[in-house]
């Protein structure tokens, strides 16, 4: 009994981390305008989705992978790319471009980390065949002990093929596909929610771009069928988060009393003697959870087999409204644990006192043209043959060919260029105005925004965060451009030193 109790406690604790629960930030995030006629899917799914017209849609999202990159720059940055690309193709969309925003220390270590991180991004992105079409690089003392790596990705999908991360009917299969589960990355979500002083190298995941490419192709093929109800990638808090999330979204969408039952002994593993908790919390990369219609089970498994992917049915969707885990290994004592969703995922919020941000006033230096060229030349920025304006020409924007609809996708991005340090409100507004300026210059119609908000410890940075949200809200309302997805990264701090507020914005629009 005490054993099962401790499992539940551990799981609830993992789901309570800032990274998974957004407990400190959600009260602010809900203030952002997220609706619009063109918005098919706003925040709350793996990526935001915008209607492009002519039956096509665009999936967009930004993700940060700051802490892992500081600890293991190559692997941290590479898995960051992997994670965001999965967010895109989980929706059934084929990724057509990415951007990366890099912020590193003003010291020698900063340069070394940057070199490794770029190498990681290049190796991963190039292999998968998604072009890196832009980004920017800044150096600042504020990032000496906490670098930032934010990756944005864009994917296109036929509207009728959009897949959401939900279960819809009791009896459907939960299918696990992709890499086997190991001990890598256990505690990753917690790591992202603590300062770097306590983080460990073991919590950084390893990457395999080849597997990701197979998953991408298989999932894009699956999106063309009507065999599945939903798809969810296994990111932070891996299997636990994905199996609970598909049920919770399904409950909200259908109003049915859905639950999930997961047979942990059916999860393919690469390490031996993994405990149920390890299986549930592992953040091994390149894994997906498919909610498959039962009658198409064979077809789904065959499709994965075609792509040399290992897939197995590990559970089922139930109508008991519970989250049940079972473990009946041959030697282990059987475990059956029935939990309520609100026990596993407590609805929590954390209030921090909103202190006024104290400016650090350190120089925020843009990388030189030469340094920047040395970076983008390591990325395949042309694969896909859509890149009409890539990183080879100056300007914080990219233009991609959308031959499917005979139009151009205009992506513009901006950071605050250090302005948020003096005034978080003005910083984000500057970033917004710059994004909009490029859209206007190119005669594009702006459709939506995705952002990544990198802040320090909430105890001194939540005030700046609130200001940033306020500024973004004002601009978004004024220009009627909704925020369709995003990412918040708090706890970017070393000892008592938080990084400067560092928001990055990405705006997308359509031009003829």
């Amino acid at each position: 009994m005490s054993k099962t109790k401790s499992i539940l406690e551990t799981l609830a604790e993992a789901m309570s981390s800032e990274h998974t629960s957004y407990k400190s930030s959600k009260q602010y995030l809900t203030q952002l305008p997220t609706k619009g006629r063109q918005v098919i899917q706003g925040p709350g799914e793996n990526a935001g989705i915008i209607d492009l017209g002519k039956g096509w849609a665009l999936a967009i999202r930004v993700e940060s992978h700051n802490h892992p990159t500081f600890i293991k720059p190559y692997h941290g940055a590479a898995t960051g790319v992997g994670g965001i690309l999965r967010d895109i193709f989980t929706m059934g969309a084929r990724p057509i471009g990415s951007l990366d925003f890099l912020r590193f220390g003003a010291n020698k270590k900063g340069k070394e980390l940057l070199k490794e991180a770029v190498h990681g991004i290049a190796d991963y992105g190039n292999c998968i065949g998604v072009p890196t079409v832009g980004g920017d690089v800044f150096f600042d003392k504020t990032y000496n002990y906490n670098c930032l790596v934010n990756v944005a990705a864009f994917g296109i999908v036929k509207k009728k093929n959009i897949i959401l991360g939900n279960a819809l009917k009791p009896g459907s299969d939960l299918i696990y596909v992709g890499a086997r589960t190991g001990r890598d990355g256990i505690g990753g979500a917690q790591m992202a929610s603590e300062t770097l002083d306590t983080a460990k190298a073991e919590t950084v995941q390893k990457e395999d771009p080849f597997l990701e490419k197979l998953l991408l192709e298989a999932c894009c093929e699956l999106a063309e069928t009507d065999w599945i109800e939903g798809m969810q990638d296994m990111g932070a808090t891996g299997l636990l988060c994905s199996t609970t999330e598909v049920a919770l979204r399904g409950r909200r969408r259908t109003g049915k009393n859905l639950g999930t039952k997961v047979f942990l002994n059916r999860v393919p593993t690469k390490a031996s003697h993994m405990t149920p908790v390890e299986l549930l919390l592992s953040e091994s990369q390149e894994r997906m959870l498919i909610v498959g219609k039962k009658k198409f089970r064979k077809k789904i498994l065959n499709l994965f087999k075609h792509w040399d992917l290992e897939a197995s049915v590990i559970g089922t969707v139930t109508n008991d409204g519970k989250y049940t885990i079972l473990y009946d290994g041959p030697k282990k004592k059987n475990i059956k644990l029935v939990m309520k969703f609100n026990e596993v995922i407590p609805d929590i919020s954390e209030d921090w006192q909103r202190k006024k941000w104290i400016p650090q006033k350190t120089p925020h230096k843009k990388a030189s043209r030469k340094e920047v060229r040395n970076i983008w030349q390591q990325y395949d920025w042309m694969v896909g043959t859509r890149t009409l304006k890539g990183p080879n020409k100056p300007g914080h924007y990219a233009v991609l060919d959308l031959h499917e609809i005979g139009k151009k996708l205009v992506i513009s991005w901006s950071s605050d260029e250090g302005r948020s340090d003096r005034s978080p409100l003005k910083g984000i507004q500057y970033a917004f105005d710059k994004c909009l300026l490029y859209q206007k210059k190119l005669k594009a119609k702006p459709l939506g925004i995705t952002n990544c908000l990198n802040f320090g410890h909430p105890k001194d940075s939540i005030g700046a965060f609130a200001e940033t949200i306020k500024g973004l809200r004002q601009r978004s309302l004024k220009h009627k451009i909704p925020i369709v997805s995003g990412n918040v990264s708090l706890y970017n701090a070393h000892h008592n030193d938080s990084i400067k507020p560092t928001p990055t914005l990405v705006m997308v629009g359509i031009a003829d």
Partner: protein
Amino acid sequence: MQNKKKSLRVGVVRFPCSNCDFDTLRFFIKFGHRPEFIWHNENFFSSYDLLVIPGGFAFGDRVYKKATGKYEIDPGVQALRSPIMKAIYDFAKKGRPILGICNGFQILVKAGLLPGKLTQNNSQKFFCDFTICKITGDSFFGDKKMLGKKFKVPVAHGYGKYVVNDKEYKRLQKNKQIFLEYQNFNPNGSVRNVAGVTNKEKTIFGMMPHPERTPDGKFFMRAIETYVKN
């Protein structure tokens, strides 16, 4: 205009982790041809006019050492185990035309269908940008109109340094097998700026630059069309 031409049946060989597969397909569709994918574990294909092995990272390029999790990068080598290789050898033996682009070039070299070796760039980094390439030797698909001309063709590779010894280089030169050379700037350290070579019989062409990405694609396509027609 395009209707007058005989459209070509092109087989685009797709390995797991080929990533210029769709680009190559679209390149041929754009010029009114009929390309189709051939999956790597098929071992039969019908009468294609041309076989193309597109760019990418067949099988991810990483060759894992068993159980240790450590790996070496060796582009192309794992493709040799695919069943399709038998069919590719047969196609080559019959003297039918094959074009290998980037990773396709690496695979053809590893398969022994093209001379030389491709190793890591001198910079030890992936490199992607436009390069200027000059058509030399017996030209691209024997197209005399292209000979001596320069084209702006993108490269994107980490292992594109072409290596042969002096003796072999001279033989290739004598046989006019080097059909493409980098001009002004050598992106990878290739011996004497070699960017593309053909076999002795001039039926198999391998090149690191990407003709499907260049704005000058029509010249490359015209050469292929003329070759197949004759």
